[in-house]
């Protein structure tokens, strides 16, 4: 299988992403980041973990974070083998 086909296939199933933002978010934000778990860390950070269908959804998510003025620290894809 070529690399391109491989990535195409991966695009089709949900990939798990971990998004770190600055500041603690309360559990009521579950609605806003639908399907994500919200985990507050000690250093005043929140880790959002959840499935992302494709690149378009990921960018939509980043935009919502932008519109809330939430400082973004990192985005990581988790391999879900």
């Amino acid at each position: 299988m070529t690399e391109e086909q491989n990535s195409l296939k991966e695009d089709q199933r949900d990939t798990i992403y971990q998004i770190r933002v600055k500041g603690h978010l309360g559990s009521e934000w579950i609605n806003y980041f639908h399907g994500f778990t919200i985990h507050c860390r000690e250093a005043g950070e929140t880790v959002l973990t959840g499935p992302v269908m494709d690149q378009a959804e990921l960018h939509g998510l980043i935009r919502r974070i932008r519109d809330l003025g939430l400082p973004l620290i990192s985005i990581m894809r988790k391999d879900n083998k």
Partner: protein
Amino acid sequence: MPILTTKLYTPSLQPKFVQRPHLIERMNENAHKKMTLVSAPAGFGKTSLISEWIAECMLPATWVSLDEWDNDPTRFFTYLLTSLQKLKKHVGEGLFDMLQSPQTTPSEMFLTSLLNEITTIEDPFVLVLDDYHMIDSKQVNNALSFLIDHQPPQMHVVIITREDPGLSLTRLRAQAQMTEVRASDLRFSSNEVKQFLDIVIGVELTNEEVAALASRTEGWVTGLQLAGISMQGHKDTKRFIETFTGSHHFILDYLLEEVLQQQPETIQSFLLTTSILDRFNGPLCEAVLRDDAIPVQETLRYLERSNLFIVPLDTERNWYRYHHLFGELLKQRLNASGKQVTHLHKRASEWYEQNGLELEAFYHATLANDLERSERLAEGNSLLFRGAVTPVINWLSSLPEAILNQRPSLWVMYAYALMIAGQNSSVEQKLHSAEMALEGEPLNEKNRDVVGRMASVRAIAAASQYQTDQVITESSRALEYLDENNLYVRTVITWTLGYAYRMQGEALKARKSFQEAISTSQASGNDFVQMLAITGLGQTQEEANELYLAEESYKQVLHLAGEPPKATACEAYLGLARLHYEWNDLDAAESYVKKGVNLARQIEGVDSFVACEILLARIQLAKGSPEEAASILNDALRSARKHDFTYQLPKIFELKIMIIIHNGNLQEAERLAQAEKLLMSEARVYQAKGHSSKALQLLEEAAFQIETEPLRVKVLQAVLLYECEKKEQAIQVLHQALILAEPFGGIRTFTDEGPSMQRLLTEASAQGVMPNYVEKILDTFSVGKMFTHPTTSSKTLVEPLSERELEILTLIDYGLSNKQIGERLYLALSTVKGHNRNIFDKLGVKRRTEAVARARELKILS
């Protein structure tokens, strides 16, 4: 498209604010550059800073607040133009029509015209594009890049955005053409934090407390403001600061909770419920709240007074919006509360519809998940034509296929919207889906209309590709199926049908369709189609040689087009120019065609401006400037090739060949005529070579021309016969032509044939053929211009003939008496006789007939 003036409101300065002189100074120093970019996350005080600068810098400024719908270039540029008109009345007025053409990519032609219009604004000014992060459309980004690349020095653009825009910032930086204000510049210093709390909020704190707040908020003004409001409601500010700065909570989350908790319940309810609105006024809030317990006007005043993030959108304080960040958080809380919001959106949609704001009504209908309402609003008022194609397409593409299948009319709307947006390749696929969905359904009234709409979409798509057979089939089908009350679509389709018939040469059918389209468009108040249909009627009248009727039609179009005229009128101007050209009123023709070409340039993908240029070249040629004509013609040729306007090519070449013949390059003329397969032109080349009989022969084979342009063929035939010494026959054919042309006052059809025609007419007149009319035509020949090579052989004379003597000699050759010559040239008989004597002397002859013969020998006369 209705214009929301609130989008063009320059935000007023808050009565209490912290001055930021270092930033203002930096912007003042760089106002001569092309652009200022204010790029920082939400809530950093970007808009406030720019409104402060505008108030300080003394430059006239205009402001556009963008929203997601401005990704539609039509809408974006409609607002941009309207905002420029606040600086200079009527600037770019003609450009609005260019935006009407169903094309989503603004062309270079449009942008260049826009730049030219901007250049007419004399004084330096500032254009602010606020919330530019809403724009992710490539077309808008590219168009703006082009504007900024070419912008005139008096314009300064300010872009306010949460993310760096899709422009080539690196280049602007490298060229030092841009000032940047970024988050780090906007953060409040400790000193500014102190000032802010002191002046704006009215709480005085110790230096330590200020430092703690500055550090916790990192100088972020929205955080500071919320903290300040919270403190106003706290007795123990010290404790508040301690808890707040010790918390790790997301600042906004923390503070908003604080602020909301301090508000009475009615205010909380008001804030949450109205957060579904992007902008609101009192009546809209009332319609959405439907709660008598909440006094709306009072609440709005209270919110403004308490600094609760509502932003006035006009000077009268009718319209407001929430500060974006605050509104977003309220919306989030509303969702989290699990309350139903669809009924709120429905109320908003109803209010907007009652108040004539269709796009907003549509938008809230889609959020209310109300399909029927959304569909009705999207099509009922031809929303698709008003810069709202993109939202409609977005909505349709968001719906599951099962839903579209239940409502096949939505598939058809989808196809239509895609066609308007220029995405032609997907149109047929959507129509196919509609067909599949309709299969097995009863053919009731509603479904018949859907079938009619499908055929309409296909007809319009075919018309844009000149597939006239297809247009006629589909239009006829559409008119058979469309609901009688669907006047809007019926009118458009009736005109389309007329257009196809005219292209096919079916004059009578075309005329009937146009007349029908005129009456239905009048009934439904559709001025746009009415203008198109009357123009079409005028053209069919013109083609039937009813020039005076055509003139009336075209003038009617100009009347409808208003002042300044809409671009749709360009074909009517062109028609009037053609008529006046034929009537040999060259100045009027030139003035009409120049108006036509200016309008025609505003319409994309239509060949009218090339047609205008061809006529302009013809006028120049008639006025005796072949060089000018050739240069205009070359422009026309370039444009026709660039835009693939093949329909205009034969007309261009025909005229080009005439000019080449005029310049004496017969070989080149022959090559071109043969290459382009232009029979009439080939005949003219033979004629110029002196092989008139061969030309005649060729003409007899030109069956197509004989059928479509019988008059033009007859005129050329008459001239050729005359040149072949078949005078009687020539006069006979000429007579036939004159009978055809007299009712419409035809002149140039004859004049353009040149000296042979002049001689032929003179002889015909002498034989009593329609003498009054012929005399009128003869008057339009200017004698001197017939001599294309006046100097070739005069050398052989000891003393060459003067120009006046040549004129007189030519008229002698035509058989005019001295008296007639005197009348034609406005000379006394004795003067003519004097000239004659000189001519005789120079030629060494004694009589008029001898003079002519001698002149022929010397090749002074052809």
